[in-house]
Structures are given as structure tokens and as C-alpha cells.
């Protein structure tokens, strides 16, 4: 697949490296040759110092043959212009990175498609969604919904006293209302078999349905965890505003921002229920005054990854159950994770995995890249005659490093065991290690 990426910023570069390691033909454009640097001699891709909005430049790049054109420069209007030009030159599909939420409204979709912008992504909104879903229940590290919430994927850190600790998985039986799809131990992701055991401090990923969340909470030993109501967000960034707008009504949110002017802007942008406080989020007295001891979740979204990590680590000691840190420096993520500060979000990885999902066949309507690990979750729609419908799950010979997390049939989530037969029109959620496995799994859905 020939993919042209315009903009060699953080998202563009990350995406280019990710896709070139999967043997896609990548051409990375940027006006500024300094940004392209030595990428070409270190990765199997081509870089060109060409302006993404230059018609001649795009022609010479060979946009006409491109299967996908991705514009991820920092400027949204430049991205949209580049996509329009690329589509008119013959690019099959275009994606533009934008900031303005209005563009995402469904009624505008036809208009954008008509001018050649086929998809829009806004990394801030995606990050805000991820933050809200991860703080919704503080004992859950990661939370994803499939098919409008019919099936859930939950990541839970296992502490002392959990029911499933140090027990071979086959002892749990087969009629349990959840499926244990993966275990994250230290920095390694494991797809467990029947003889594997859950150990202390593992992060365990369950698939289940909404009804059985309390049951998961029980087996994971998390009964004493309160639901999140009081939230403090540090840093009045665009993500903070989006997150505040998207939070459910029962949450009480305070945003702490150091810059007075920015505080005012944030205050104007959010509803009255959300309190904006002008002050330094690193100031412990201020945090105590604003009720850090009654806070259930603390979200650090300043521009500095270091500040976010340290602030989360500090408030964790003050008794806040749930912390979320924005870490934009990808190399810091494993370290942030080992500091035990709860969830880590990264705009680049979120945006890249979202675009990656667009690349896969249309049958996959949901691919989520689990942040800070090389695991992917994919949702497939089964069609008549697919290979996966021909045998029971245990006889299919699924490749190692993959497991079926569950399926959604007629809008209802169902757990999958070895004897389950998958039927046409089911939505199947597959968990796999390494995004290259998705391609292998795709063969079962043909």
C-alpha cells in the first residue's frame, strides 16, 4: 500500500516509522528538510522536502498513485488544503488532522467528502475520550467499549487479596462471565493459556459485559475502591477543555491552570459546573485547599511530561486513587508506568493507532492500540463463508499470540469458549500481540 504522509512532526514521524516497519511504502513530506533529517537512512521509507500544499510538489511525489494521503502538519487549514489537492490529484483516501471540533459534526461529513477530505481526526478529542473512559471507574486502568458497549475490555492491576491471584487459570472454570485475554507483567505482554497464573502487580485484561463489572471488581479484589466523582485536572490545555466537556454530569471537575490569561480562556470555554482555578498545580497547599484529599482522580495535562509524571506521583502519595498523566515523550512511557502512576496517555500513539485503523480493511471497524505495549485489539464483522465460521474456535488453529476476546451477537455480548461456533454477522473481538498479527488474523475473516 502506498501511503504519503505530509508533516514530519511527532505524529507524522511516529506513524511513518510504524507503517514502514509493516512493509508499507511510505513517503514522508515536509517543507522543512531539517525535520526529515536522517529518517531516510535509518528507516525503510522515502523523505522529500516538499511543501504539502504545493501542487507540483505533490504531483512529483506521485500522490496520484497513493492509496492513502495523511496530512498531519500542525496547521489544520494546511492539512485540509493538502488533502483537497491530493484527492483531486488522484489519492484514493485522505485523512486530515484538525483542531476544530465543529468539523467533526456528522452533517459536515458529506461536504468534506465532496471536496476530497475523506476522514478527519482530532488527536485532542481522542485523547479526551480516552481520559474520561479511564477515570470513569478508578479501579480500572483501561476501559474500552465494543459495539456501543455491548462488550467491554477492562485492564485491572492485581493487588494482594485478589481472588484470581496465583491460581492456574483452568481452575477458574469455563462458565465464568468474563474472559482473561492478556496479562501485562513488567514490560511484557502475555496471552495466557490454561496453566498460566496471575501474579502480584500484573495488569490483567478482561473482556466482559456491563452486567458483570461488579463481578470483575470482586475477583480482582477491588471492592473498596470508590467511584470517581471529584476530579482535578492540572493544566488548561485543549485536551483538558475537551475532557471537561465530555465528562459525565455526575463528575465534579476542577481545572488548575498557572497562566491567568489561559485560565480565563478555559473558563469561557467550559460550562459553569466546572471550576477553573488560577494557580500552580505543583503547589501542595493549593491542592490541599482545593480538596485533594477528597479527590478521586487527578489528571495531569501540562505541556511538560516530567511535570505530569511527578505531579501524579506526588498526589498518589496523598491518597488519590486514580491518576492519569499525559506523557508526550514516548521514551518516558515505560518509566512512567513503572512509577505506578495509573494511566498514561500519549496523543501521538492515540492518533497513530486511529489512523492505522483506517488503513485496515473496512471489515475491521475498531482497532485499538493498547498504549505502551505492542498489543492490538481488533473488532471484525463476520460474513457468510468466512474461514472463522467453519469450525469451532478451538479447531480453527488461530496463530499463537492471538486470542478471541468475545463476540457481539444481535447487540448482546457473549463470551467465547473453545466450543463456540462463530456465526455470520457476529462482531468478533480479537486480541493480538504486535500489530503485524492483525494481518494474519484478517485471513480468518475472508
Amino acid at each position, binding site marked *: 500500500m502506498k501511503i504519503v504522509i505530509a508533516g514530519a512532526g511527532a505524529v507524522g514521524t511516529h506513524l511513518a516509522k510504524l507503517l*514502514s516497519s509493516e512493509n508499507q511504502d511510505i513517503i514522508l513530506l515536509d517543507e522543512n528538510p531539517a525535520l526529515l533529517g536522517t529518517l*531516510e*537512512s535509518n*528507516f*525503510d521509507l522515502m523523505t522529500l*522536502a516538499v511543501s504539502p500544499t504545493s501542487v507540483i510538489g505533490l504531483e*512529483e511525489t506521485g500522490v496520484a498513485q497513493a492509496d492513502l494521503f495523511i496530512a498531519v502538519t500542525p496547521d489544520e487549514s494546511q492539512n485540509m488544503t493538502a488533502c483537497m489537492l491530493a484527492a483531486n490529484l488522484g489519492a484514493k483516501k485522505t485523512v486530515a488532522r484538525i483542531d476544530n471540533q465543529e468539523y467533526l459534526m456528522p452533517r459536515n461529513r458529506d461536504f468534506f467528502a465532496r471536496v476530497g477530505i475523506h476522514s478527519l481526526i482530532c488527536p485532542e478529542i481522542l485523547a479526551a475520550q480516552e481520559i474520561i473512559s479511564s477515570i470513569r471507574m478508578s479501579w480500572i486502568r483501561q476501559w474500552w467499549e465494543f459495539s456501543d458497549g455491548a462488550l467491554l475490555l477492562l485492564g485491572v492491576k492485581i493487588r494482594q487479596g485478589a481472588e484470581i491471584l496465583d491460581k492456574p487459570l483452568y481452575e477458574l472454570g469455563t462458565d465464568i462471565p468474563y474472559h482473561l485475554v492478556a496479562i501485562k507483567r513488567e514490560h511484557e505482554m502475555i496471552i495466557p493459556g490454561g496453566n498460566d497464573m496471575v501474579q502480584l502487580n500484573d495488569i490483567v485484561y478482561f473482556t466482559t459485559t456491563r452486567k458483570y463489572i461488579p463481578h470483575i471488581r470482586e475477583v480482582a479484589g477491588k471492592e473498596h475502591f470508590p467511584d470517581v466523582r471529584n476530579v482535578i485536572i492540572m493544566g488548561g490545555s485543549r485536551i483538558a477543555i475537551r475532557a471537561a466537556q465530555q465528562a459525565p454530569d455526575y463528575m465534579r471537575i476542577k481545572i488548575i491552570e498557572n497562566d491567568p490569561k489561559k485560565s480565563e480562556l478555559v473558563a469561557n470555554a467550559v460550562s459553569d459546573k466546572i471550576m477553573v482555578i488560577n494557580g500552580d498545580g505543583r503547589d501542595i497547599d493549593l491542592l490541599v485547599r482545593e480538596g485533594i484529599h477528597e479527590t478521586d482522580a487527578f489528571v495531569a495535562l501540562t505541556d511538560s511530561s516530567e511535570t505530569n509524571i511527578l505531579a501524579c506521583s506526588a498526589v498518589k502519595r496523598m491518597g488519590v486513587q486514580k491518576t492519569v498523566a499525559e506523557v508526550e515523550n514516548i521514551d518516558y512511557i515505560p518509566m512512567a508506568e513503572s512509577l505506578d502512576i495509573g494511566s498514561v496517555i500519549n496523543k501521538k500513539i492515540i492518533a497513530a493507532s486511529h489512523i492505522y485503523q483506517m488503513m485496515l480493511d473496512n471489515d475491521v471497524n475498531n482497532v485499538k492500540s493498547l498504549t505502551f505495549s505492542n498489543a492490538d485489539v481488533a473488532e471484525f464483522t463476520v460474513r457468510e463463508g468466512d474461514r472463522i465460521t467453519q469450525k469451532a474456535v478451538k479447531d480453527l488453529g488461530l496463530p499463537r499470540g492471538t486470542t478471541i476476546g468475545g463476540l457481539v451477537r444481535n447487540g448482546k455480548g457473549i463470551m467465547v469458549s473453545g466450543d463456540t461456533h462463530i456465526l455470520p454477522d457476529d462482531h468478533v473481538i480479537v486480541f493480538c500481540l504486535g500489530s503485524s498479527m492483525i494481518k494474519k488474523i484478517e485471513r480468518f475473516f475472508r
Partner: protein
Amino acid sequence: MINGRFISRILGLLLQVIAIFLLICAAVAWGYGEEDLEAFLLSALITMASGGIMMLFGRKAPQKFSIRDGYFIVSATWVLWSLAGTLPFLLGGYQMSFSAAYYECMSAFTSTGFTAMDNIDSLPHGILFWRSLMQWIGGLGIVFFTIAILPYFGGTGVHLFAAEMTGPTKDKLHPRVAITSRRIWAMYIAITLLEAALLSLGGMPLFDSFCHSLCTTATGGFSTQQAGMSVYDSAYIQYVVSIFMFVSGINFVTLYSLFSSRRRKRIQGDEVKWYTGSTLLCTLFIACALVYFSGRDWEPAFRAALFQVTSIHTSTGFTSEDLTVWPSCTWFPLVLLMISGASSGSTTGGAKCIRLLILYRAVRNEFRRIVHPNAVLPLRIGKQPIGTQTVLTVFICIFLYVGFSLFFAFLCMESGYSFVGSISYCAGCIGNTGAAFGEFGGSSCSFLSPAWKWASSFMMLVGRLEFFTILLLFTPQFWKHQ
């Protein structure tokens, strides 16, 4: 630090590739029913076995690959392949010393064209084919060839590509290195076959036309005759060879985009102009000199000049007649062309036109700056601006080229060779030209002492990989643990 086991595995794999080429030569020897069949089979067996052992040693290597590994692999591959290349010479019973055989193979792989053999006319077909084939593979690059055929390299091929390609800018035809190299090799094969067909139509024996074609597209300059191309006194053959030498001197990426429907204008436009211009200018100058000083007719003078200019300019090193009897005013442009070489990203040696072009424009800008101290003077090749770092690298490369040539020429003179001979021989080795004046202008360099044969092999390798790749291995930083 370098990943020894992984390198061992890749080098082992590369040895398997050369074993296949040895088997091809064995097939040629078998086809002609000659006695060197056994030598080739044995060579292939030894190469395969040692490659197998190296692969076995590295079978559990971690797949970690750094820039250092890339440079080490490329350097080691050239040394190892030349070593494997000596086997048929040593096992075939040609009374060749190891140093002479290694000299021959390094000269072949680097497509230089100096030979240490005096008995080429009496050699069997298999070994003649082997000499030509070595030049042909080495012309575009050993590792470059392997990237094209083995999907195994994948992303790691990028590091190798950068270490082996010639020229200050590394251009790609396609985002993926493997596909770039596959297309270029396909074009290379097509050019070779076309030339072989044209030569055999001109009355050259089929085997000879094939071997000469392999050596022309590689701009190597080995011949199946001791006396070289002067045996074929046919205007047609000389024109055909001249044209193909010229074509092989063009940047292959540019050449490919000339044929493909979607052409992208990249920076080589200027280089091609410079290359064509210098070829025409020197040809006309030498043709005139031959007409006025040697009293020849226009057509033979033009033909001889064209042949010799393209041969020296592209660093091929074929000679159609004895250069030493030419008017001495023709030597100067020929030495200049020898130092210059043809385009980057082609099979030729020398400094490459694009470097001289950058050098020229940098010098021109410097003079403009004196007159207009506040002028902003970007250095452009075509439409592409060339950064200061690239200009600096070009200067360093030219400095190394000249410095190395002079250093070795000095040593050469100390060993008792003539001034003109020493300078042109050392420049010819480092520039991979394979043509020289004085005592080195003859058909063979077998008179060199073993020490000089080793030194020459080193010069050829350093020149072929454009200094940095080989010399890097001699720097302490390369081996430090950080």
C-alpha cells in the same frame, strides 16, 4: 557495540549468494567441457560450508541492528567476497600467488580493471566468465544485489544501502529499498543483455561479447583478451562499447526515470548535463589533437577519442590503442576525467561529477561573496538546495581522495616507479579506473611486489566504498562501547 552473531549470520548468508555465482561459472566450465569445472565446484562447496558455519554460529542472534553493524557488514562483505573469489584461481592451478589472486578479485569486484595475469589468452572459459561476473556484481554493489534478491533484509537493508551506495546524496526510486534495488537490477540486466546482443551482431564471438558486456555495464574494464579491446578493430564494436560505457556512467535512478512514464525531476538533471558536456568537450578536443598532431582522418580520430574519453571518464579502463603514443596534450584532459569519474549512483568510480559540480559552485559562491559581502548565496543543484553539511562532506571526501592518492603515489615513487606512473596508478586504483600511464599503462600489473598488491587491493576497496565506510572501521570511536 556491534552485534557479532547477527553479523556472522548475514555474512554467512552473503557467502551462500556468492556460492551460487560460483556454481554458474561451474556450469559454464561444464558447458565448454573444460578442466576447471572441478575447481569451481570445490570453491562453491568451500564457500557454502564456511557460510553455513557462520550462519549456524549466528542462528540465535538477537535481531538488533545498528548503523555500526551496517558499515561493518558492508566492509566485511567486500573483503570476504574477494576472498571467496580467489578460490577458483588458487584451486585451478594457474600458479598464482595468493596476493596476486586477491589483487585480481578485488580489482574485479571494485570494477577497477587492473589485472595481475599475463596469460589471459590461454585461460579457460570458466575463469574468464568468473572475472567478468565478479565485475558485473561488484559494479552495482554486492550488498545492493543481495538486498534485491533476499527479502530477509527488510528494514535493515536501509543501513547497508546507505553504506554502499556512491555519491553525496542517496536517492531512491521507490520508498522501499528492496524494490528500488530490484528495479535498478532489472534495468542493469536489460542493458547488459542488449549490449551483448549488439556486440555479437557486430561479429564478436558470443562468449566474448557476453563477457565484455558484463564488464562494460559494470564500467570495470576486464577483457577476455590480454591485449584488451584493441583486438577488435571494428568501428561498429567501438561505437557500441562507447555508447554503453557512457550510458552506464549515468546515475541509475535518473536513467530509470528517463524510461519510466512518471519522471520526477531530481537533482541529477544538472549532473547529467555536466557529464555529457565534459564528455563531448574532451572528445572534440582530443579528436582535434589527433587530427592536427598525429595526422589522422576525422572519423577514426573522433572514434578513438570518444572511446578513450568514455572509457576513462566512466572509469572503465578499456583501451583501444596504445595511449603512450598519443600527443602528450591529450594526457591532461584524460587524467582530469579519470579523477572526475562519471555520475553518482552509477557503476563508475572517481570523485563523481556531482561532487565536482558542488565543489565548483561552492568556489564560485566564495568569489561572489568577496565582491558582495552581504549576498545570500544558496548552493543549488537543479532546484534542490544543498546544505552546508553536504558541501562540507563533499570537500572532505575530495580531500581524502586527493590525500590518499598522493600519499600512496609518494610511497609508490619511493619503491622506484616513475612519477607519472605512480600518480596515475594510485589515482586509478582509488578511483577504480583501471587505466594508467607509464609502466602501469601496459596490459598487466603482474610485476608489482606482493606488498604493493595488498596495498593496491586496499586502495581499490577504500575508493570503491568512498572512504568513509572502510576508514570508519579504523577509527577508535567505532569500537568503543558507548
